[in-house]
């Protein structure tokens, strides 16, 4: 049974416009093996798995499953062929029962009438088999803890007879004991001949659980080898790449870098704790651009939100130069009043009023303070300021009355940034400032950060793109599992060192 090829991909490539996220990836997974998929953020792991499970089409390349051609056009197609995926984000319906969620796509019925007894018996069988005898099948999913929800999600995939099972970060929300139970189950599936693709940042798990591993980097295949022959250091090195190779663009970038740092501290964070974020302390000086990196789920975004008061921290202090010490912000309005600005990660969700005009969006944060007179809007001033800043940032638009929805991603981001430039803050928090925007707009944003630094502003920049941080920042702080584990100064950093630090709290 072992060593029989189950899935083979040949030159899978996926492009979005000019951006290639997966390039010519060929892997093979055998029956009866647990195959770990490793790679840093943006290496293409999730994209690859989505293509295999029919959630995403490939730009080019082919796949074979069990010896015959395999080209799923939907998740249903893939499921019919015996391929199941458990994605990172939960896909359960909170208001339905555990049993209904487990069998949602194929509820047993007789002439349209739900066969409740059969449904719950079947669900019971699945849960027991998975060691979840503590969960009632009648319970509403939303009343379960996140760990149990994750287990239900996994059980749902396991409830179907599958040949290939894909798990994307399944243990992120699980306790140690729950993880152990999952591993035992995965091993027994492997012994039954199921092929399993397993994605995890936790290298301990990979070493313990997997038979072979494949490393991806920047959308490309790096290597497949037996897990036994790879140490954790090897894994990190493979993921981050040979440090001598990427030193070149790094040096090139630093030649154009100016250091505008002054000695005066602009923002001081002490022992900040907020949910995922634990006990984080750091200082940012005026004119400094500090990058924050770390794996997905390491608490980067959460750190910025806690500083800004978007999430209320449970302990710790946030102080600005000249401001009160010994406090933290409990609402964004307090942070803004103190001189902090935050360009949010998801600009469509909470950064912009998509249906409103460029003018409304640009002046939203400064309307009361700068463009009003006893409650009345000073239209002329507002219009002039909006036009001026749109010109400065080279925002491409027909008119400032145009709705932001009609702009491209890059120009939307310029509007989101312009909002804070008019407010004239001292500290700028950027969360993924260049996600999904084109090269020219990206350039413009980097230039803007530089001019902010030149004018004595402090910038904290969260990005998954390490090269971006290396190009723009004076220092890079690395987060791992909610903690700030290390800070590297320009000239002292390398992809390798930063990757090591990112995994610090996961590979204990």
């Amino acid at each position: 049974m072992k060593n029989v090829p189950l899935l083979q991909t040949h030159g899978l490539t996926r492009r979005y416009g000019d951006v290639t996220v997966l390039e010519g990836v060929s892997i093979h997974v055998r029956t009866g093996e647990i195959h770990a998929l490793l790679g840093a953020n943006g290496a293409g792991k999730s994209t690859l798995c989505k293509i295999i499970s029919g959630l995403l089409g490939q730009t080019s390349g082919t796949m074979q499953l069990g010896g015959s051609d395999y080209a799923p056009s939907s998740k249903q197609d893939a499921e019919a062929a015996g391929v199941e995926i458990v994605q990172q984000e939960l896909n359960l319906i909170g208001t339905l029962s555990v049993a209904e969620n487990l069998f949602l796509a194929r509820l047993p019925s007789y002439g349209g009438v739900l066969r409740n007894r059969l449904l719950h018996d079947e669900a019971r069988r699945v849960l027991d088999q998975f060691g979840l005898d503590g969960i009632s099948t009648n319970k509403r999913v939303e009343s379960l803890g996140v760990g149990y929800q994750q287990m239900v999600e996994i059980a749902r995939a396991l409830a179907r007879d599958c040949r290939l099972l894909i798990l994307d970060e399944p243990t992120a929300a699980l306790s140690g004991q729950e993880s152990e139970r999952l591993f035992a189950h995965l091993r027994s599936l492997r012994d039954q001949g199921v092929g399993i693709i397993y994605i995890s940042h936790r290298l301990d798990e990979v070493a313990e659980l997997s038979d072979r591993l494949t490393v991806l980097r920047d959308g490309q295949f790096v290597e497949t080898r037996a897990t036994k022959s790879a140490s954790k250091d090897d894994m990190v090195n493979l993921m981050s790449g040979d440090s001598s190779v990427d030193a070149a663009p790094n040096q090139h970038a630093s030649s154009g870098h100016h250091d505008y740092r002054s000695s005066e501290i602009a923002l001081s964070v002490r022992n900040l704790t907020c949910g995922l974020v634990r006990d984080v302390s750091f200082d940012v000086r005026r004119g400094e651009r500090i990058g924050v990196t770390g794996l997905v789920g390491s608490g980067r975004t959460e750190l910025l939100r806690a500083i800004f008061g978007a999430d209320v921290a449970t302990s710790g202090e946030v102080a600005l130069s000249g401001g009160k010490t010994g406090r933290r912000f409990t609402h964004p309005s307090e942070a803004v009043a103190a001189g902090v600005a935050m360009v949010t990660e998801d600009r469509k969700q909470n950064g912009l009023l998509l249906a409103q005009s460029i003018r409304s969006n640009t002046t939203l944060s400064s309307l009361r303070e700068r463009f009003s007179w006893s409650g009345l809007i000073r239209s002329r001033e507002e219009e002039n300021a909006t036009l001026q800043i749109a010109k400065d940032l080279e925002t491409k638009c027909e008119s400032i009355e145009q709705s932001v929805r009609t702009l491209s991603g890059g120009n939307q981001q310029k509007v989101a940034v312009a909002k804070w430039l008019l407010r004239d803050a001292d500290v700028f928090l950027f969360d993924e400032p260049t996600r999904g925007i084109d090269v020219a707009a990206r350039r413009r944003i980097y230039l803007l950060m530089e001019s902010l630094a030149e004018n004595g502003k402090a910038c904290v920049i969260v990005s998954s793109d390490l090269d971006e941080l290396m190009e723009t920042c004076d220092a890079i702080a690395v987060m791992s599992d909610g903690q700030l584990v290390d800070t590297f100064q320009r000239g002292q950093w390398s992809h390798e060192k930063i990757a090591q630090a990112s995994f610090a709290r996961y590979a204990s």
Partner: protein
Amino acid sequence: MKQSRWFQIVTEYGALLAVLGVLVAGFGLFSKNFLQVSTLVTIANQIPDLTFLAVGMTLVLIVGGIDLSVGSLLALSSAVLGVLMAKYGWSIWTSLLVAMIVAGLCGTVNGVISVGCKIPSFIVTLGMLEIARGATKVVTDSQSVYIGSKVEWFGQPPEGMLLSPAFAMAIFVVLVGQFVLTRTVLGRYWVAIGTNEEAVRMSGIRPAPYSIAVFAISGLMCGLAGLAQTSRLSTADPNGAVGIELAAIAACVIGGTSLMGGRGSVVSSFIGVLIIQVLQTGLAQVGVSDSNKQIITGAVIVAAVLLDALRNRWSKIA
């Protein structure tokens, strides 16, 4: 510059005014009496109650809420006004002040509970609808209160004039409402909150006080509407204005206000009020029965909204 401003007005209100024009012309064709001054004056003097409510409702809808209690609050303020004037002999002004305070407080309670406790305003104001109607009956002992000439001057045209002070006041409130909505920080924040409340919060603004204010204003508008209705009928009727909240919502929606929040115009809602009232009066004049009137009114509301939705889709494609 001036031309483009007129062009703006035409594109903004053109479709609505066209619908209104077609209705007026149509009824003029079918009924000889419709296009006479007396009919138009009757319509004008009947609309202030609904206009006040529609102004408040527009603002509530813009921030993404809804206010179902306006009919009952109208009746409650009318009852307070009637009892104070008729039984206690208070002047119209002090009585109005008390009625407005009562309605404004009820609106504030709507706002504080729905915004502060994050409960859908649909439910909170539905509760207020019942509470205020019950309170109205308590205040009036379930009897109509006749006031007479002390109050009639406001809702009925003075000797030798065509239009009532209430009508003038309604126009004034529409203009003020439109001004606040489009030219003040408050109005800009309302639209922003209705579009994306989280984005407003992340821009450093506390949305809650602005959202609560909108419900308080809607309450105050009910106070004015109470005065308008009482003065038109000379009587405070505890069973009056039942279901008028739906007419107010319909007027806003005909005017293009979005039930999802973030979009609306006070002037457009006023045109919506005119369309509804012209339809009512016109249908009555051409001799349509009450039951058929209801059917036609319902159909026109749906047709108007459908037209607006199609127009939006076209403009997005274009």
